[in-house]
């Protein structure tokens, strides 16, 4: 069984919503669209207060090349352009739309028929993807068209269907229900970057998805299913490329394309199918609502801009003992300030943790057991980096490659002394990154 080479941990999987059908979430009364739903420049509003929009109407233009436009997920009237707290915890500019119904732009193909053929050229495919505002849907939200315009030729596409975060099942459920559409999406990616070979990487804890995708790939030459060992962070981009094609991407500024690989999330492949074949912009996605005390953990096809509280209500309501609401999975997700945060392009899941689960254990001194060193998938020394950050030893931290850290949290997960290793390292990365940028600016 293939896997990445260095480190890794195995958290409890807790895939409570696995095998549940995707249900359609009802429309919100008010939809909120943050202008920064992606990495890069924020989008720029192209509607004004009082404008009438339909489902699929563009409401904000891309703010640059590394940016993506935003489309309305509802029909209604623009109420205001304001600020609101988003998943980052900060107040950010948003467009608020009062919902009056579900009238779609006529250009969108709403039929259930699967479209298999397109006459579009690679450049046109990428342009369509760019217009439809597709970003990486695994959580990082990197604008998709940028990845599909590599500066060097690539020879392999890897579809990330690993879903190594515990609890989350959005990608899993999508594979079970839309396998063919996903594969057509993969074909489109392959055509866009002129590659003959693609792997669909799935962790071995999803045998039903592996079997179904294997069966369907028979009709798609060049696409192969690659089952992977269940190990966290198998879905980290660098780890995934290492596991599937045995190539290691060097530190930034190197990109996956520099070793000839492009990675796209499986949800992104589906969104690409819908964008290119159905002319449908990215305005809805599958969101897992889960947690041990949640009455009905489920997978919900949700329009962007829907407040998370509405999804939690649908899954049985907020349990009394909730201590933390997490956007994403438990290993890399962010604790949310409020349940009113809207669903965005990168919202793969909402995880409710009980007060008991949410607490951290008592912090003890480092006993130098070296378990963090063995767990680090980047081959770093987390205990040392954390200590150096704690003591503001920035030069030493830089020499010990603090910037290589991918913030997967394996070190802190494994620490028997409950030390906040990643908290310190994250802080150190912020400062060291600033020092490096300042140095580069001086030159």
């Amino acid at each position, binding site marked *: 069984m293939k896997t990445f080479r*260095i480190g890794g*941990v195995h958290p409890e999987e807790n895939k409570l919503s696995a095998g549940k059908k995707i249900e359609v979430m009802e429309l919100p009364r008010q939809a909120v669209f943050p202008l920064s739903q992606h990495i890069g420049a924020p989008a720029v509003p192209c509607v004004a207060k009082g404008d009438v929009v339909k489902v699929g109407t563009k409401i904000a233009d891309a703010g640059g090349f590394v940016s993506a436009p935003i489309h309305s997920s509802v029909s209604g009237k623009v109420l205001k352009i304001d600020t609101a707290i988003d998943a980052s915890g900060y107040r950010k500019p948003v467009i608020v739309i009062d919902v009056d119904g579900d009238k779609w732009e006529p250009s969108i193909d709403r039929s259930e028929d699967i479209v298999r053929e397109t006459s579009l050229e690679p450049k046109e495919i990428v342009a369509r993807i760019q217009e439809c505002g597709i970003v990486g849907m695994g959580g990082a939200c990197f604008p998709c068209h940028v990845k599909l315009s590599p500066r060097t030729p690539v020879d392999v596409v890897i579809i990330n269907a690993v879903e190594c975060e515990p609890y989350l099942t959005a990608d899993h459920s999508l594979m079970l229900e839309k396998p063919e559409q996903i594969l057509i999406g993969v074909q489109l990616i392959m055509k866009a970057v002129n590659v003959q070979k693609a792997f669909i990487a799935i962790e071995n804890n999803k045998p039903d998805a592996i079997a179904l995708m294997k069966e369907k790939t028979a009709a798609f030459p060049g696409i192969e299913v690659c089952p992977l060992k269940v190990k966290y962070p198998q879905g980290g981009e660098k780890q995934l490329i290492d596991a599937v094609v045995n190539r290691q991407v060097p530190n930034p500024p190197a990109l996956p394309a520099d070793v000839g690989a492009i990675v796209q999330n499986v949800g992104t492949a589906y969104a690409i199918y819908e964008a290119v074949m159905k002319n449908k912009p990215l305005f809805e996605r599958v969101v897992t609502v889960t947690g041990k005390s949640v009455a009905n953990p489920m997978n919900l096809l949700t329009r962007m801009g829907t407040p998370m509280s509405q999804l939690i209500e649908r899954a049985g309501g907020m349990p009394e003992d909730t201590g933390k609401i997490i956007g994403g999975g438990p290993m890399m997700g962010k604790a949310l300030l409020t349940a009113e945060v809207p669903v965005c392009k990168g919202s793969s899941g909402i995880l409710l943790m009980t007060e008991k689960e949410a607490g951290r254990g008592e912090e003890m001194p480092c*006993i130098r057991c070296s378990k963090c060193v063995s767990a680090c998938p980047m*081959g770093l020394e987390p205990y040392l980096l954390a200590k150096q950050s704690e003591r503001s030893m920035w030069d030493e931290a830089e020499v010990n490659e603090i910037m290589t850290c991918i913030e997967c949290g394996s070190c802190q997960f494994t620490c028997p002394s409950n030390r906040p290793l990643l908290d310190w390292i994250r802080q150190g990365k912020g400062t060291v990154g600033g020092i490096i940028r300042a140095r580069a600016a001086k030159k």
Partner: protein
Amino acid sequence: MSPHVHGGDSVKRNMRWVIAAMMPALLWSFYSFGLGAVVVTLTSVVSCVVFEWVINKFILRNPRNTIADLSAVVTGLLLAFNLPSNLPLYIIIVGALFAIGVGKMTFGGLGNNPFNPALVGRVFLLISFPVKMTSWPVPHQMSAYTDAVTAATPLADLGNANLADLFFGNIGGSMGEVSALLLLAGFLILLCSKVISWHIPISIFVSAFCFSVLFYAIRGGMPFADICMLSLKHLCAGGIMLGAIFMATDYVTSPMTHKGMLIYGVLIGFLVICIRLFGNYPEGMSFAILIMNAFVPLINNACKPKRFAKEVKK
């Protein structure tokens, strides 16, 4: 901030497994040395815990006392393992005070000590009470304590010792070191519970055996088969097993990377054989480990883990 979940490992869990792994050898010492072994163990453990508590409370004024993490219990057990079973109470108490007080708490307690506390205690006693620390009771005197009949360590005359006796522990010696077999059982427990990796103990065994063969071969005058036999006896006699499995693997005082652990282990093996063959002491394991403890920061600096997408850099 993420991660929001934890693997559930704890200092206490690790210490519990270390204690569990010491149980086979401890029970054997009770069986071999009877009353004396029980008295020495209890005294050592109780005084280590009490000293840690007192120092925490009255000298460091730590708001949270650290005895609950069980590390003092482990130190107490390890110290007892390194003592003969006929040692008078006051010597044990002095040893425990030195181990916990000087070996551990002066540096700031758990996690900060450069040297293995139990070994610091043992070596202090060895230098202070050389005769009492090197006269070992003959096994199977169940009700004897300080009045036990003693004999020299088999290490003094390794050529005539029986390998099977050494391996199963039918000999005199420090309480916990006599049965190689049961110490290896403890090794297995530590490996299976993932408390330690194989690197340090195995590299010590291999290195000690190889250097012993090498030195005897250079000295000459013995057929090769005898040299190998003698080298095997070296592994089973004295403190090599105990030291390699329980003392050299102490988290706090051993290197952080597998490569570093191998270097550390090989050098301990080399040192212990040098001390045994060329030094004044018949036994050298404590010194070998303590000397290498001092090199651990240097080893950590020299041996970085293999970084992702990079050859190992110095």
